[in-house]
C-alpha cells in the first residue's frame, strides 16, 4: 500500500480565546500504487483539510500518515522533507498557485532548486510537452496565462521531481467544461504513462465517477462527534499551520 | 547626568502659553475716563502662582513682601533702611545685640493687635519649620520680646543683620500660624492674613486673576491706590499688546526689567512712558572654576576675557541699550566701589597671551592644544531657562572658537546646574546675579564667590583667604567710611583676579502708562511697583474707575 491514513484528527482554533473547532475525526483511507481515489462531498466538510494533511502541509492533531509504511512526520526535518517530496498537491485556484512576480520558468525550476536536483532545459521542454504546452509560455507571468494553461504548468512543475502521489484539490472547478475535459484526459494519460497515483477531491459526483477507481464521501470518512455545520469560510479561513 | 531644566524656556513658553487673559478684553477697548475714588491699578506679570501660601509659593512670597505682609524695616530706593513695623532700631558696638522698637498701632487684617510676641513667634516658627529659614537658629542665640520692643542677641557679630533679618522675614500672625504644623503643605484663606497695607481680596485660578484691596486701618496710613489687580501667568506677547492698547497699567516681574526684544514692540506706543534705571543685578555673568587646570592661571582668564565680543553681546542681548562692563564686576548702582577699567575685546593680545603660555594649535585643526598636548576643550555650563542666555551661549561659543578655544556646551535646568557646580566639573559657568543676590553675603556679589557659602545659585569659586578676610571685615563693621574703602578693596580684588566677568552692564526698563507721575524705582522690591510708588500714585486721581475686567 502506497499511502495510508489511519484515524487522523484535525481541528482549527479560532482567534485567541476560542476553543478548537474539530473538522476531521478518525479518518482512515488507503491508496494503492497507480490508482486514483476520489473524495467527494459538499463544500465546508473538510475535503481541503484532508488534502493538506495527506500532502504533509499541515500536521494532524492525532493519528498517522504512512507513505510506503513510514510515518511522513517522523524523523529529522531532512528525512521528513525527503518523504514529503513524494506527495505533492495541485490547488483549486490556478493563478494563486504561482508567485505572481516570478516568470513561469522560475516557478517550474523551484522544486528542483529546493531539492538541489539539476534540471536541464531539455528536461523542462520534455515535461512541458508531456502536459501539451510549448516552451514559449515559460517567459511569461502567471497573470498572462489562462486557467487551463496554469493548471497544466503546475502539473509539469510537479512532474520534474516525479512524486509518487499527487493530491488534486478540485483542480478543474474554476475552469470551464472544455478545459476541464482536457485536464481530466491529461491526468488519466499521465497516470497510465508514469503510474503516479492521485487523490481527487471534488464536489462534482459525475466527474469523480469518470476519473476515479474508487470514491469515498467525506461524510462517511470523517465521523466527528461534535459535528459542527461549518460554513465554507470557517474551514478554509484560518489555517493554523 | 545633566538634563534640561528650561526655566528660560518656561519663560518663553509662558510668554506664549501662560493663561493669558486679555485685560478688559480686546473686544472692548475701553477708553480711559478719569473718575474719582475706587481707582484700580492693573498689573500684567508672567510670574506663575501655584498656591496661596507665602512660605511655599515663590510668587506669592513676593506679593506678600510687596503688599500684604510687613517686615521690621524696609529698604528705600537708595538701599537705606527705613522704619516699617519697627519704629526705631539700634545695635551694640560689635553688632551682636539688636533691639527694635515696634510701631504701637499696627493691626492684623482680621483686626487683632500686632505684638512683639508675634515677631518672636515668627522667627522661632520659621527657624523650626521652614527649611528656607534654616539660618535663623544658627545666627540668633536668643530673642526677648517685651511689650513694644524686641531684642535679638546673635552668636557672632553680623553687621548686615538689619538687612537679612529686618527685610527678609515677613512677620506672621501667631494666632493663625501657631496651629499650622506643616507650613509648606496646603493653602488656606487665613494664610493670606498679614499686617500690610493691602488685603488679599480674591483669586480666580483658571483666569489667573488676583485682586488686593486697600487696608484702611494700616498703621502707616492708608495707601493711595484702592485696588490692585494682578494678571498672572501672562505671556509677553499678550502683555506687550495690552500695554500698547492700554488695558494694563504696568508690567511687573521680580528682579528683572521688561525683556529687551519685546521693548522694540512698544517703541511706537504714545500712551507709554519708560522708566529706566541702571540695573543692580547683572543678567549675564561668566564665572571661572578656579580649581580647574588652566582656569587657575590669571593670564589664561585674562586671555579669555579679551576674546569676548562685549559690543556684540550688548547689541544682541540688550538691543544696544547696555554699556561695556567694568572689570570691577559690580555695576554702577553700588556707590561704594573704586573705578576699574572697562573690559574690551582684543583678540590679538588674547592670541599673544595664549601663545606665550605655549597653548598653540599643534595639529592645525583650529583648536589649540594645551601644554601636555591635549586639545583645549573647555566645558561651558549654562542655565537653559534664563532670559537671553541661549543667545549669549551661541555668541560665546563663536567668539572662543575664533581664537582657537574649543567649547563643549552643557545646558542644564536649575537643579542639575546646582549639582554640576557643586561637583566642580565645568570650566566656565554662565549665570545671572539678582539685585538681592548682590546684597547677599558681604554684599557687592561677594555672596556668589565666597567658597564658604556653598549651594544655591552661587558658584563659590574663590578660595583665596585674603578675600575671605575682606568679607569678614565688611560683615563686622557698620561704619559707612570703613565700609566704603573695604568695598573699594573688593572691586580692586575683582579687577585683579577676575573670579568672574560681567558680560554687560545694562539698564532696567519698566514700561507703564504715561498718565502716571514718574514712580520711584526700588529694585529690591522688584522695580516701579513698590510701597513708595503706591503711596505716590494714590494722590493723583488719574485712574479710571474699576473697568469691568474680563
Amino acid at each position, binding site marked *: 500500500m502506497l499511502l495510508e491514513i489511519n484515524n487522523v484528527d484535525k481541528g482549527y482554533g479560532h482567534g485567541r480565546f476560542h476553543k478548537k473547532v474539530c473538522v476531521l475525526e478518525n479518518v482512515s483511507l488507503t491508496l494503492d500504487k497507480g490508482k486514483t481515489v476520489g473524495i467527494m462531498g*459538499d463544500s465546508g466538510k473538510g475535503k481541503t483539510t484532508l488534502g493538506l494533511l495527506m500532502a504533509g*502541509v499541515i500536521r494532524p492533531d492525532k493519528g498517522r500518515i504512512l507513505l510506503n509504511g513510514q510515518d511522513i512526520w517522523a524523523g529529522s526535518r531532512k528525512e521528513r522533507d525527503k518523504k514529503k517530496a513524494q506527495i505533492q*498537491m495541485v*490547488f*483549486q*485556484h490556478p493563478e*494563486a*498557485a504561482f*508567485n*505572481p512576480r516570478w516568470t513561469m520558468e522560475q516557478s517550474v525550476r*523551484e*522544486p528542483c532548486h*529546493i531539492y538541489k536536483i539539476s534540471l536541464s532545459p531539455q528536461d523542462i521542454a520534455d515535461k512541458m510537452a508531456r502536459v501539451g504546452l*510549448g516552451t*514559449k*509560455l515559460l*517567459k511569461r*507571468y502567471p*497573470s498572462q496565462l*489562462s486557467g*487551463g*494553461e496554469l493548471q*497544466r504548468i503546475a502539473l509539469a512543475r510537479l512532474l520534474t*521531481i516525479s512524486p509518487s502521489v499527487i493530491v488534486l484539490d478540485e483542480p478543474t472547478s*474554476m475552469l*470551464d*467544461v*472544455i*478545459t476541464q*475535459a482536457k485536464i481530466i*484526459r491529461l491526468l488519466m494519460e499521465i497516470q497510465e504513462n508514469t503510474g503516479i497515483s492521485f487523490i481527487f477531491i471534488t*464536489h462534482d459526483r459525475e*466527474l469523480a465517477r469518470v476519473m476515479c477507481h474508487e470514491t469515498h464521501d467525506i461524510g462517511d470518512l470523517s465521523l466527528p462527534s461534535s459535528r459542527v*455545520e461549518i*460554513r*465554507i*469560510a470557517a474551514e*478554509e479561513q484560518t489555517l493554523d*499551520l | 547626568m*545633566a*538634563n*534640561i531644566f*528650561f526655566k528660560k*524656556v518656561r519663560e518663553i*513658553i509662558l510668554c506664549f502659553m501662560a493663561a493669558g487673559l486679555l485685560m478688559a478684553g480686546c473686544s472692548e477697548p475701553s477708553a480711559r475716563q478719569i473718575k474719582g475714588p475706587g481707582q484700580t491699578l492693573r498689573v500684567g506679570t508672567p510670574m506663575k502662582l501655584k498656591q496661596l501660601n507665602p512660605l511655599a509659593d515663590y510668587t506669592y512670597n513676593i506679593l506678600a513682601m510687596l503688599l500684604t505682609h510687613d517686615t521690621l524695616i524696609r529698604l528705600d530706593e537708595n538701599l537705606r533702611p527705613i522704619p516699617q513695623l519697627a519704629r526705631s532700631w539700634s545695635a551694640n558696638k560689635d553688632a551682636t545685640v539688636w533691639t527694635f522698637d515696634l510701631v504701637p498701632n499696627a493691626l492684623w487684617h482680621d483686626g487683632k493687635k500686632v505684638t512683639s510676641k508675634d515677631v518672636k513667634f515668627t522667627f522661632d516658627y520659621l527657624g523650626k519649620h521652614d527649611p528656607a529659614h534654616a539660618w535663623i537658629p544658627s545666627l540668633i542665640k536668643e530673642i526677648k520680646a517685651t511689650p513694644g520692643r524686641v531684642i535679638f542677641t546673635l552668636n557672632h557679630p553680623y553687621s548686615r543683620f538689619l538687612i537679612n533679618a529686618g527685610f527678609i522675614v515677613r512677620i506672621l500672625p501667631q494666632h493663625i500660624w501657631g496651629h499650622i504644623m506643616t507650613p509648606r503643605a496646603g493653602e488656606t484663606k487665613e494664610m493670606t492674613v498679614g499686617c500690610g497695607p493691602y488685603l488679599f481680596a480674591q483669586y480666580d485660578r483658571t483666569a489667573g486673576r488676583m485682586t488686593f484691596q486697600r487696608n484702611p486701618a494700616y498703621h502707616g496710613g492708608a495707601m493711595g491706590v484702592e485696588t490692585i489687580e494682578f494678571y498672572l501667568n501672562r505671556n509677553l*506677547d499678550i502683555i506687550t499688546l495690552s500695554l500698547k492698547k492700554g488695558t494694563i497699567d504696568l508690567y511687573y516681574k521680580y528682579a528683572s526689567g521688561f525683556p529687551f*526684544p*519685546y521693548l*522694540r*514692540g512698544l517703541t511706537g506706543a504714545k500712551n507709554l512712558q519708560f522708566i529706566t534705571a541702571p540695573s543692580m543685578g547683572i543678567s549675564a555673568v561668566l564665572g571661572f572654576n578656579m580649581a580647574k587646570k588652566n582656569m587657575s592661571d590669571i593670564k589664561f582668564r585674562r586671555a579669555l576675557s579679551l576674546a569676548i*565680543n562685549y559690543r*556684540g553681546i550688548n*547689541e544682541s542681548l540688550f538691543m544696544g541699550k547696555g554699556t561695556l562692563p567694568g572689570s570691577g564686576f559690580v555695576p554702577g548702582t553700588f556707590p561704594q566701589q573704586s573705578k576699574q577699567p572697562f573690559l574690551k575685546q582684543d583678540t590679538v593680545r588674547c592670541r599673544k597671551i595664549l601663545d606665550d603660555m605655549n597653548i598653540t594649535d599643534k595639529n592645525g585643526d583650529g583648536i589649540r592644544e594645551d601644554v601636555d598636548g591635549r586639545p583645549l576643550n573647555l566645558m561651558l555650563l549654562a542655565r*537653559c531657562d534664563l532670559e537671553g542666555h541661549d*543667545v549669549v551661549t*551661541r*555668541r560665546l*561659543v*563663536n567668539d572662543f572658537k575664533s581664537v582657537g578655544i574649543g567649547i563643549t*556646551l552643557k545646558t542644564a535646568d536649575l537643579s542639575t546646574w546646582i549639582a554640576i557646580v557643586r561637583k566642580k566639573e565645568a570650566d566656565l559657568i554662565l549665570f545671572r546675579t539678582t539685585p538681592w543676590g548682590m546684597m547677599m553675603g558681604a554684599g557687592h556679589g561677594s555672596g556668589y564667590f565666597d567658597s564658604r557659602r556653598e549651594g544655591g545659585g552661587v558658584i563659590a569659586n574663590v578660595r583665596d583667604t585674603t578675600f575671605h578676610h575682606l568679607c569678614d571685615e565688611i560683615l563686622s563693621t557698620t561704619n559707612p567710611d570703613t565700609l566704603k574703602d573695604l568695598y573699594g578693596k573688593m572691586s580692586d580684588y575683582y579687577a585683579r583676579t577676575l573670579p568672574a566677568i560681567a558680560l554687560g552692564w545694562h539698564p532696567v526698563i519698566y514700561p507703564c502708562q504715561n498718565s502716571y507721575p514718574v514712580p520711584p524705582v526700588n529694585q529690591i522690591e522688584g522695580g516701579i511697583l513698590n510701597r513708595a510708588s503706591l503711596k505716590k500714585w494714590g494722590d493723583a486721581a488719574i485712574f479710571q474707575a474699576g473697568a469691568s475686567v474680563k
Partner: protein
Amino acid sequence: MAFLTPASVLETGPMNKHSRNWKEGALILMAAALPGVSILFFKNMDIANALFSPWLPPGDGHLLGTNDVGQDIFFQLISAGGRSLMVGMAAALTATLVGTLTGCVAGYYRGIADRVIMGLADIFLLIPDIPLVIVLVSFFEPGLFNVIIVIAMTSWPGTARVVRSRMLKIKEYPFVLNARSLGAGDGHIIFKHILPHTGELILAKATLAVASAMLTETGISFLGLGDPCQVTWGSMLHGVFAGAGLINGYWWWYLPPVLCISVTVMGFNLAGFYLQKGWGGNFPADSPLNRQGQIPGKTHPEVPALTGINPPVLINNKDTQTLAPEPDTLNPISKPHNQAPDTQPPSFPLDRQIFRILNLGVEFGIECETNQKKTIKALDGVNLSLVKGDRMAIIGESGSGKSILFLAMLGLLPYNARMSGEVFFRGKRMASFSRKHYQHIRAWDIAYVPQGAGNALNPVIKVGHQISERMRIHGSISKKKGMVMAARLLGQTGITNSHQRVHYYPHQFSGGMNQRVLLAMALAGENSVLLADEPTKGLDDKTKEDVLNIFLKLNREAVAVVTHDLWFARQFAKTIVVMYKGIILEQAPADSFFTAPYHPYSKALLNALPSQGILNPVIMSSHNRYAETDPGDKHGGDSYRIDGGDDDDDDRSNKKNKEISRGCPWARECEEFHDRCRHMPRLFSHNIHKVRCWCHAAGN
C-alpha cells in the same frame, strides 16, 4: 494630531511600479526634498554660523536678514533643512526596519512571539506620543541622536502592524503552501515569496514615517527640547518666539521655516499616499498581482471572486466601477471590423419582443503591464431578442462575455466600458432612458439575480431588510411589513423556518442559502422579466435541484439565465444561446440543441460533460492542422483571454495574429477547420437553428 501616522489605516494592495502614479509621487518627493538636499552644497560652509550684526531685516547682503545672534537666516534655513531631513529620514528608517523585522517575525512565526510583539505594539500605539516624547527627550540628553531614537520608538508599531497583517494574508496563499509542501525552508519562503509582495508597502510606510518623524522633530525642538547648537527648522521657530519675532512682526524670520516644514511634509505625505495607492485614483488593472487581461470588474460575474482558501484581497482586482452615472450617453465606437452584418430580420413581431439587441459591442480600455492602452472586446456584434414567454439559457465558458450582456441590458456597465449598437426594451431605445427611468425599470420591470460568489449580500444588513428593500424604497411599505413579505419569499425559495432566519445576517448563511436569498430578492418585485446570472454556480447537487424547481415554478413574462451548467439549461430553458469570446455561435430550441447541435463548439461542449463520459478525442497537444501552419503556437487554444489587441510583444508576426483574430473564434480548436474559417462566418439560419459556421452556409 500633528504627529499622527495615518499609514496603518490606509494600506491597500501593493501597486505595480510601472504605473503613472508612481512617477507623480517621486516627482513630488523630489520637490519636497529640495530645501534639504541643497544642504549638500552648503553643508560644511561656515557662513551659516558666521556672526553679522543682529536683528537686521532682509536687505543689503542678507536675503532674509539676520536673527537674534546675528547669523544669516537664509543659510541657517538651508543647514537647518539638511538636519531636519536627516533626522526625519534616520528616524523613519530605523522605525521601518524595526517595524518590518518585528512584523515579519510576528506574522510568520505566530504563537508567543506574535502575542508579545503585538502586545508591545498595542501599548506603544495606545500611548499618546507627545507626552511620552517630551518625557523621553527631557530624560535623555539633548542631541539629534536621542531625538531620532525617541521618534523611532514611538513610530515602529505602525509599520509592524501593517507588515504583520500582510504576512498573515500572503502566508496562506497556495504558492506559499506549495513551496512549503515542497519542503522549502522558512528563509526561502520569506525572502523569495513573501517579502517581494510587501516591498511597495514598506516603502510607502517609510515615506509616510519620514513625514511624521519630521513633524515630531520640529515639534520637539519648537518646545526647546532639541539641541541648541544643532539648528533645525523647529529650533529656528523656537528662536523666533524667544526673540519676540511674532509680536514684532519679523515675518522674514518665522515664515520661511514654517513654509519649508509644510512643503516637505506634504511632499512626503503625497509620495507616501501615491505609493500606497491610498490616493483616490483607480487601481491599474495590470499590476502583476492582478489577473491580467481579465475583464475588469470584480463584480463581473465571469471572473469568480476568489472565495475558498485565500482571502480575496491580493488576487482580486478592484475594478473601476463606481456609482458614477451610468453611461447613458453612449459614444458610438468604430463599427466592429469586418463583421458581416446579419441581414436576418428578427423572426418575431416587434410587440412580443421584450428585449431586442442589435449589433451590441462592449469594449473595455485597460492599462496593461507594458503601460500601453489596450482595449478588450467583451461583446462583439451580438444580435439577440428575448421574446415574451421565452425561457432562454445563455451558455458559454467563463470570459465569453455572457454576464456583460446582462449588465448591458440593465445599463449597469462599469465606468470604463464603451458600448456600441442598440438595446431596445419593449420597443424603446434604452440609450435614451434617463437615470430615473433606468432606476424605475430595475425596480419594477426587470429583476436581476447576481452571481452568488463574493459578498453579493451586504454583510452588515439583515437578510430580510435586503430582500424587502426594493419594495420599501419605491413601494413605501413599512419595515415590519417588509420583513413579513421577505419571510414569505424566503419560504418560497425553500429555506426552512424563514420567519426566524429573516433576522439573520449573510455571514450566518451557507453559500447555497445566500443564493436563495438573492433569488428571493429578485422575486420580491413581481417583476415581469427575470435575468439570472449563474444561479447554480458553486452549489452542490441537492441545492441545484431546489433552485431548478423554483425556476420552473416561475410565471414571468420572460426569463433569461446565464449559466455554464448544461444540466440546468437542459431542464429549464426553451431556447439555448451559445456564446464564445463575446460572439454568439449558435441559437436553437433546447431539445433540438441537446439532441443534435450544429456548431462544432456546441458539440465539443456537450461531449466534454462528465455525464457524457468525456468523449472528447484524446488530445496530446492542442495542435491541429490550423495551428501547424503556425508552429510557434503560443496559445494552448483554450485561453479564454479574449484576443484583443496584440498583447504579446515578443510574437514573431503581429500580422499573423491579427489575421487569426478576424477569423472564426473557434477556428483554432475546430475539428472541421476549413480555409473559409479565416473569415468570420455570418449567423446562418438552418431550419430552426441559427449557427455561425461556414459548414452550414449552404442553406442560404
